[in-house]
């Protein structure tokens, strides 16, 4: 692997890690997602620092140009993460729907209760 690409990869993974740390400090990222991105960033960093490992992995999957393993890793991670989001979104959507339905039912109950005044205390 050429050193220019290695430097680029190291800088890139450091940027990812710094961004994640920044987001956690600002409380903009929940822990489960933070862990996911943090783990991804560390894997990238290790692979870009440790040439030997990158070459071993490239050899294992039969890739001629080792840096493209990094690319593959990034794409695969992005794909899995966005799929995870789709699942979470669908679940949230379901819960959101049920909340709206419960709200409508409760609103009716509250209005009904307001119409029929409760018996005064002591009666």
């Amino acid at each position, binding site marked *: 692997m050429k050193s220019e690409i290695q430097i680029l990869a190291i800088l890139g993974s450091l940027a990812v890690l710094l961004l994640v740390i920044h987001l956690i400090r600002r409380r903009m990222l929940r822990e489960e997602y933070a862990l996911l991105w943090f783990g991804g960033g560390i894997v990238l960093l290790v692979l870009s620092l440790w040439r030997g490992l990158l070459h071993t992995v490239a050899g294992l999957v039969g890739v001629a140009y080792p840096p493209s393993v990094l690319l593959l890793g990034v794409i695969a991670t992005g794909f899995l993460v966005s799929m995870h989001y789709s699942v979470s979104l669908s679940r949230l959507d379901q819960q959101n729907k049920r909340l*709206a339905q419960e709200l*409508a*039912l409760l609103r009716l109950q509250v209005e009904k209760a307001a119409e029929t005044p409760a018996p005064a205390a002591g009666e």
Partner: protein
Amino acid sequence: MVPAYNESESLPGTIADLREHYPKTDIIVINDGSTDGTAEAALGLEVTLLDLPFNLGIGGAVQTGLLYAARHCYDIAVQFDGDGQHRADEVSKLLRAIQSGQCDAVIGSRFLVPSQYRPPLMRRIGIAAFNTVNSLILSRRISDSTSGFRAYNRKTIEFLAQNYPHDYPEPESVMILCRSGFRILEVQVEMRERQNGQSSITFLRSIYYMCKVMLAILIGATRRPLRRPMDEI
């Protein structure tokens, strides 16, 4: 149960029609986050209003009505569109079918016997596609799986309150009900041409919905049938 999304113009007429035939029945209007004063229009009528805080789509709205019916232990729930398409004088056909005990859910079909009613071409293709798919999966004839003019008995109300499909639910719910062992019957009904308001399914969206619902039905058919509440005891 009358689901209504932006139907302030046609809702009073629909309710008057229902009241004329069923003066004592509880009418539940589900306002699905309308922006045209449908809720206000409903407040002036003698109905129970379920006011959703934002638009859920027809599936979510109908399910709200089913939840209400389930919790207040209604024996029969009739689903009746707010746009004036369904006729109150046809409700008795649905009720008779349920009351006779020969089915758990009854669909008011427009196409059981050949009739005058001819929907626009696009719609006709969509309806035919759903009917074909449903008929094939369930290996029985379903003549109008897109009809939203239906009645359910207690058992079905409870089941659907928990398991009702999303935004264009009619065809999928036929499949789910049938595969879960509910007895479905179709009866021929007359419907009016739409008077006010646009169909909730506009031209371009209909293609999107068709793909989506087809996917839901086809994948749903590979799922194990949902169990009826009765069987869980």
